[in-house]
């Protein structure tokens, strides 16, 4: 039904997609896997007509088509369920299903449109009231409404972009059922994901992208989990993470007692020793990032006691934080990390006053300092004058790490999702940096929802479910199955 041949697309010097070919038959689900930055979104954008390919062709039923804009994609029957849904929360399900549809006349026959919307929902095996407001639905239910909207538009090729990323387990099961129904209806589905278990559960074949290239396509019975991971990473799993160097007993560190963040975290207590990577593992929304944010003093209503090396670190005291070298690295680099200034200014941001006398700064001293930081985290010093936003995701992350090096003493690094938006190559480098900071005696407290990362890099793992600690695992006892069970449906945990 859909055939993509030798598709290529560059953005400036970056080859986002090179020579990618794949085919999709009716009634077929093809997984598209790959790390962040592998080219998955670019492929989707080309299919949806958001950008135009530099080379290659897209064929539908054997006929070459040129997709100039999303409206054309809609006309051809190609539809996307994006991660960020495009529903209007204050409108009813019915209105949302027909919203923006080109075939609805201004004075439409309401009955007919109700019937067709209801039929689409019934087909998906759900029974929502058509007049319910979308804001009252869960994320999973909204996703199904979005799919129903695509069905009434007679979409034949559905592209789903990580549809289960924000869903609960029950909802994931329902989504799987919906996908099976769609497949039985003869729809072709491109299923973009990096959740490997879903690939084996629902898909017929898989295409793996890495650095914009197709590194392997196979039907699902020809491939196993290890092979798929190796294809995605471009190396075997074990090369990714640096070896742990024993750093002696650590009785000094960051002690958190009874941290409360209303609506996010309850009674959170934890000791994060120096020289270790302590990881708070949890699903998106479990409250892990609220812990690090609160310690960084970025959550106004947070309460609890935090003690660093025996001396209290009051929540929200910016002065103490900077003096004792507590660095917070957000998962949202664009708004909470990088300033829209050059690399040099970004590097020295928290340390300008250390290079000033009576408020007057010395640029000479700042430059020298920035040069040293560049050397330590392997950023090319030639790029000090470049705009920080022009750096790759990996280099931006290294820049943020460098800020932690400015203090007099080894401090604390609070880091959320350390490798989000970082490509595979830089990922290994970030992990190496994390280890290096350990060896320097820093406290590393990270949060992550990426299980492989949690297992691969952590010395201590604390699992979090709906704002409460489920259990704690020390180095040798960290294993993926237990952690996964903890953060998805812990035994004995009460739903908050």
């Amino acid at each position, binding site marked *: 039904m859909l055939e993509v041949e030798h598709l290529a697309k560059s953005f400036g010097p970056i080859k986002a997609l090179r020579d990618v070919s794949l085919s999709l038959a009716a009634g077929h689900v093809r997984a598209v896997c790959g790390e962040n930055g592998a080219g998955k979104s670019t492929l989707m954008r080309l299919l949806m007509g958001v950008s135009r390919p530099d080379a290659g062709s897209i064929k539908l039923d054997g006929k070459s088509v040129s997709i100039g804009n999303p409206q054309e994609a809609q006309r051809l029957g190609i539809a996307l369920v994006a991660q960020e849904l495009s529903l209007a929360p204050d409108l009813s399900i019915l209105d949302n299903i027909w919203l923006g549809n080109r075939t609805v006349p201004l004075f439409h026959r309401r009955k007919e449109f109700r019937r067709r919307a209801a039929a689409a929902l019934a087909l998906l095996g759900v029974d929502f009231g058509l007049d319910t407001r979308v804001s009252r639905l869960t994320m999973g239910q909204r996703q199904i409404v979005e799919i129903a909207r695509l069905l009434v538009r007679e979409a034949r090729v559905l592209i789903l972009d990580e549809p289960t990323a924000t869903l609960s387990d029950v909802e994931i099961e329902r989504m799987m059922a919906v996908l099976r129904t769609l497949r039985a209806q003869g729809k072709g589905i491109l299923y973009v994901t990096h959740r490997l278990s879903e690939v084996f559960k629902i898909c017929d074949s898989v295409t793996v992208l890495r650095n914009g290239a197709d590194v392997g396509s196979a039907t699902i019975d020809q491939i196993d989990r290890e092979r798929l991971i190796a294809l995605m990473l471009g190396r075997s799993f074990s090369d990714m993470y640096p070896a742990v160097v024993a750093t002696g007993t650590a009785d000094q560190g960051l002690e958190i007692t009874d941290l409360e963040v209303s609506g996010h975290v309850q009674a959170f207590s934890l000791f994060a020793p120096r020289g270790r990577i302590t990881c708070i593992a949890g699903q998106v929304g479990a409250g892990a990032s609220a812990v690090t944010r609160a310690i960084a003093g970025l959550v106004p209503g947070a309460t609890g006691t935090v003690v660093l090396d025996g001396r209290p670190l009051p929540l929200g005291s910016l002065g103490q934080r900077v003096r004792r070298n507590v660095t917070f690295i957000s998962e949202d680099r664009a708004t909470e990390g990088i*300033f829209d200034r050059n690399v040099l200014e970004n590097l020295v941001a928290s340390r300008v006053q250390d290079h000033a006398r009576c408020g007057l700064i010395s640029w000479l001293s700042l430059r020298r300092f920035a040069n040293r930081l560049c050397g330590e985290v392997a950023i090319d*010093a030639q790029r000090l004058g470049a705009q920080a936003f022009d750096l790759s995701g990996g280099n931006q992350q290294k820049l943020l790490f460098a800020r932690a090096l400015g203090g007099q003493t080894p401090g604390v690094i609070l880091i959320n999702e350390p490798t989000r938006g970082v490509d595979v190559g830089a990922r290994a480098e970030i992990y190496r940096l994390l280890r290096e900071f350990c060896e320097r005696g820093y406290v590393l407290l990270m949060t992550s929802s990426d299980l492989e990362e949690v297992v691969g890099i952590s010395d201590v793992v604390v699992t979090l479910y709906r704002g409460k600690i489920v259990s704690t695992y020390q180095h040798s006892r960290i294993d993926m199955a237990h952690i996964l069970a903890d953060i998805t449906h812990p035994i004995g945990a009460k739903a908050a």
Partner: protein
Amino acid sequence: MVGVSSSAARTLWLRLKAPSRLLVVRVAIMLALAALALATPSFLSAPSLTTLLTTISFVGCLAIAMTFVTIGGNVMSFALGATAAVSAMVFVVVLNTAGYASGVAAALVAGAVITGLQGCLIGFLRANPIIVSIAASVLIYGVAQRVTSNETVHVSETLIQSLLKGKLFGAPIEFIVFLGLTAFGQAVLSFTTFGRNLFYIGSGFRAAEAVGLPTVRTTILAYVWAGLFAGVTGVLLASRYNQANMEFALRYDYDAIAAVLVGGIAIQGGSGSMLRTFAGVAAVSTIQIVLLLHGFREEWRLFITGLIVLAVVVLYSKRQRQ
């Protein structure tokens, strides 16, 4: 250090060798304006040059004040003109009773307090800076009207000769002050921790919070600096005209905004310089004087200034989208 300075030199060289389109456009506009001015008969005559330089100075000092607000990410203030007018009146009143130095000091304090209070609202409460400044401006007019009953305060005859007037090196004294303030403002931006923090906060407020920069203090300080510069403007105005009233503020406010925009200070904050503001002031004022010399009347001046501001904002949003 050799490595660093040579890389800085290389960046400069690259910029000169392959100038960005924006730079070319800027230089072209400047040249065109200069040509237009020179082609205007009587532009280079002493009286019109003096007028030009004096006007530039009033607008300029206010624009320098505005630049602190804009770079800090608080867009613009619509209360600086009113603040300058109040400072002018405070200056005259204190001058008449307590002498010149006290007058200047009182004017500066008045300016700093009025805008500093707005800075507190914006810094502590994250109140919308534009709305705060509009409200403040209305408040200032209201209070001033009540206190002065809409009257003009005059400098007493015996003190007039003590005012800073006349020329230095052939330029009106106001212009010398403006030049000095530009250099001073630029130094504050470039070489103080406050100045650097202002850039950080303007270019990424949440990033600044995450790094632990003193966002509240810096925002308030930015407004205090703006108030001080508005205070200087007030002193200059009162000194030139031997009197002060609330009418003073009316046009300089808007011209200062136009100048900052034309100078290319990023509206969303986080970049810009006093030198750019200076260029903006020069451009806007030159256009206005040329219009006057060609015999266009006041309504044309307003019309053209409005058009320029609109054009800059449109061009700017277009660039932002790319």
